[in-house]
């Protein structure tokens, strides 16, 4: 797998290898291999708990309308001249929700017009239509829930721009039980290589 660092720790060797395969399959299924750079998993069979910590690769910034369209004011209308159709569907959804379907007009494939009395060009330019980070975090937490054993319904998770941890169990998760491993492993990931080092 194309991760910079990937380790599963468990005292049962056959279970460890099985969970390594499961984690790899899940990340591949959800298309997260390019997003996660480091992943550490520990399965404690006595407590029992499942712990995962990792580092994400640098994410592209949110996509604004100005990134893929020219915004001009012409004849009392704001005219959007689309140069890249990739985000068209997301953009129309956002604009329809904000201004109403009947006020967002698309005369041809690459042009969208909005009445300038209800909108401002600057406001439209800065509108974020797609933020990969948002969906990635959802996908990432879904992936971790999927990888973790199913009965572990008591869980805590934390995600920031570049790092994450996830711990789940069937028993009460007291801070004493999990704080140690979280700080130890997050420090290890931070110290280990360039990606994590920046956040230490």
């Amino acid at each position, binding site marked *: 797998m194309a991760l910079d660092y990937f380790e599963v720790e*468990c005292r*049962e060797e*056959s*279970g460890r290898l*099985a*969970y390594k*395969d*499961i984690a*790899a*399959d*899940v990340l591949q*299924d959800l298309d997260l291999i390019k997003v996660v750079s480091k992943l550490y998993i520990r*399965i404690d*069979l*006595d407590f*029992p708990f499942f712990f995962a910590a990792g580092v994400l690769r640098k994410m592209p910034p949110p996509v604004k309308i100005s990134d893929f369209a020219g915004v001009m004011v012409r004849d009392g209308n704001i005219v959007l001249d689309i140069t890249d159709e990739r985000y068209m569907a997301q953009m129309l959804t956002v604009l329809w929700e904000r201004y109403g379907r009947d006020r967002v007009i698309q005369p041809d494939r690459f042009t969208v017009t909005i009445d300038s009395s209800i909108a401002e060009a600057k406001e439209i330019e800065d509108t974020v239509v797609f933020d990969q980070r948002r969906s990635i975090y959802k996908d990432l937490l879904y992936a971790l829930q*999927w990888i973790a*054993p*199913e*009965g*572990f319904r008591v869980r805590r998770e934390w995600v920031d721009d570049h790092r994450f941890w996830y711990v789940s169990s*069937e*028993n009460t998760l007291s801070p004493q039980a999990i704080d140690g491993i979280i700080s130890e492993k997050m420090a290890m990931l931070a110290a280990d290589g360039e990606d994590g080092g920046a956040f230490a």
Partner: protein
Amino acid sequence: MTLVPVTYKGGVYRHDIIVDLIDDLGGYIIQKQVVAQDVFLQSLIPKEDIELVKATGRPLGGEVIESPLVGTEIAIVSPSLDIHHLPHTSCDVAEYLRRVGAKTNMVGLSRGFGKRIANLSIEERDIINEHDCAVFMLGNFETCIEYKMHSLRRGITVPIIVTGGPDRETLKRIIEPSVDGYVGGLGRIGHRMKKQEGEIEYLDRLIDEVSGVLDIRRESIAKDPLSVSPARLMSVIDEDLGITKGSTHPTPVTVQIAGLRVKIPYGEYADYVASIKIDDSVKVGDVAEILPSRMRDYILLRIKPFSDTGIMV
């Protein structure tokens, strides 16, 4: 006359010839499945007539495949029906067992997951006990299997085959008291089983294990034979009520080793089913217990042994 469980696979064109032939030979068709241009007949055919069926089917592009599990109903017990266990490995296993003729029912436990929290409800226990055997599909950790198996098997009276990630010897060592079959290497996985080595080979082992367990069951039944063969009882009931014609179930009358599951409401039909005549002097109610199934409102028939009824039809 020894009936052998086989699957006839051939084209739809003129397959009624085979259907009539099996009927004329005194065999039974347990399930007929039409998939696009192909027809699959899961049947019980007299041993000495297998060659005749093969020869008749050859010009129609048909073949006869040995299917040791035709006429059995098996419960595939999965810790839950969540994405952790489905579609892999539970569906892979259920599908593989169906290929050799078994009727499989997936029993997704409501609280079968976890280590300490795993348990089995009374309804789940009763449903599993209506089958010929139960395949318990457990996870990858021997610590968990050892811990939770006690609660999952409580009250189960049918033979149990356990599958799990650890190897067969480990499963045998940790499960106490012992169960009827073990298949190692079949724990939770995240992809469809395709590789021959390490995946399909374990499914083949599972088939062997299930066949072995059911052979032992058949042998013990043979010592005190049933008053009527389940396949014959199926054809008598189906002929009388026309269930297969009017139902969309794949197997409206499911054949088990020593019983039947008839998929019509118990309340309305139980008395009528009991009154159906098998021959001039014997009714269904004389040779079988007619019970309400825990699965929906179906009827469950348990065929009584000869020692109980003194009847053999």
